[in-house]
């Protein structure tokens, strides 16, 4: 399990920093690409292109002559735009709650008193990947009522484990000798945590937050199943009505939202991390 690398630690490729050390000895085009993080600034162009394609597709749909359900499902003001706002709202609130719960919990679980349970929590978080979001959602809906709040809490539970795991791994991988040095200079445990461990673990925690955001955007697509609304409504009506145009508009719109937030996460990861790391 030592070298396990999960998609959740660094979920996306909209930035180029994922490749390993360069193999070419001199700086070629590619090395320059990575040094300047051009990938990070190219992603919005790709997303914008996708928006353009979707817009053109939408304009050419000839909705005036389409069946009534299609016309109604694809209305921007009453359907798509409100759904998109719901989507972002659900994902955002769920992510905030996840971070508020998971990061402090991760800090507590890596303190010496709880160090023993750490590996078990990480193991549970690993196999928790097989947890079906669908089932979790329905169980919450059944218990809390068919509404957006229930959906949100289901997503909080679903995204909790990966963020918790990232926080713990991030704190654990802080070099022991750095902590020893801090203690040796007479810093209290609290000071070591706030001055050394947390700043050094920030990149990993940020990556966890980004993962939670992306997961929650994805899960919000399912919120409609228990009356939570969001863009899943459009996708599913496309499937049920057997109307490919509805399904495609819904799906591409969701993809655009997801890619956008993932990119924002990548930007945050780059600019919020402490200098020198």
């Amino acid at each position, binding site marked *: *399990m*030592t*070298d*396990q*690398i*999960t*998609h959740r630690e660094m*979920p*996306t*490729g*909209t930035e*180029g920093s*994922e*490749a*390993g*050390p*360069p*193999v*070419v000895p001199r700086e070629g*085009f*590619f090395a320059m690409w*990575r040094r300047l993080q051009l*990938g990070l600034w190219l992603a919005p162009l790709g997303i914008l292109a996708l928006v353009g394609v979707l817009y053109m597709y939408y304009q050419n749909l000839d909705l005036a002559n389409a069946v009534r359900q299609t016309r109604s499902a694809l209305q921007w003001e009453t359907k798509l735009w409100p759904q998109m706002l719901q989507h972002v709202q659900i994902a955002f609130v769920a992510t905030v709650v996840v971070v508020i719960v998971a990061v402090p919990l991760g800090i507590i679980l890596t303190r010496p008193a709880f160090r023993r349970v750490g590996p078990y929590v990480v193991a549970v978080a*690993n*196999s928790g*990947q*097989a*947890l*079906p*979001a*669908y*089932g979790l959602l*329905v*169980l919450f*809906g*059944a218990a809390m009522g*068919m509404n957006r709040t229930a959906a949100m809490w289901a997503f909080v539970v679903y995204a909790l484990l990966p963020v918790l795991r990232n926080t713990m791994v991030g704190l654990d991988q802080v070099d022991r000798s750095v902590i020893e040095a801090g203690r040796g200079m007479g810093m209290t445990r609290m000071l070591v945590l706030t001055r050394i461990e947390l700043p050094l673990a920030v990149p990993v925690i940020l990556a966890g937050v980004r993962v939670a955001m992306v997961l929650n*955007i*994805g*899960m*919000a*697509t*399912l919120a409609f*199943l*228990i009356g939570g609304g969001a863009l*899943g409504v459009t*996708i*599913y009506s*496309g*499937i049920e009505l057997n109307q*490919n145009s509805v*399904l*495609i508009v*819904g*799906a591409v719109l*969701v*993809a655009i939202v*997801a*890619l956008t937030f*993932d990119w924002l996460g990548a930007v945050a990861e780059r600019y919020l991390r402490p200098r020198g790391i």
Partner: protein
Amino acid sequence: MDGFSSWFAYVGDHWSDVLTGTLEHARIVAIVVVTATVFSVILGILVERHPAARAASLSIAGIFLTIPSLAMFALFIPLVGIGNPPAEIALFLYAILPILRNTVTGLDSVSPAVVESAKGMGMGNTQQLLQIRLPLAWPIIMAGIRISTLITVGIAAIAVLVGGDGLGGFIQGGLTRLGLPNSYESVWVGTIFTVALGLVLDILLSLAQRLTTSRGLRI
């Protein structure tokens, strides 16, 4: 305790359905993970030493994982219709990144001295790959396969929304009859058996990982 006993009663009454659902689910996962493994390992070998191709393939595989599952499932309906195929294609795309990334990292992690000595003794590129680099990267690749398997098991539960098979059927069945007898039990069965299938497959794969890893590589 009433919940537990009714749950067991439900499983007892619907045993053959549960088994069928689990096997269908497992079948989808098996098809996806096997094809994704073959594809990703080969791709990983091809791109490992070419920085641009490698970053591009990792990036694209990463984008797949970013796109919400229902959207991904739905996007393939216009191409292959409803049923298992759109789900399998989407799951395949999800399963690529963990295996691809671990293949690349695994091959990277092979000590240059080992490769140098293999080359120095006259091993050709194919021999180096098959006898040295892949066996050494194997434990890391297997870790990637295990992650892909877990993800696939979890996400495959929504295949039912695009007309596919699997344990998601129990969840959907429960949802549509919510409030009626046995609906709650049905959702629980779908959820628990999905997680259980994930755990069983993970244990099997960890055994396979142990058996296929040289004793010299174990810590």
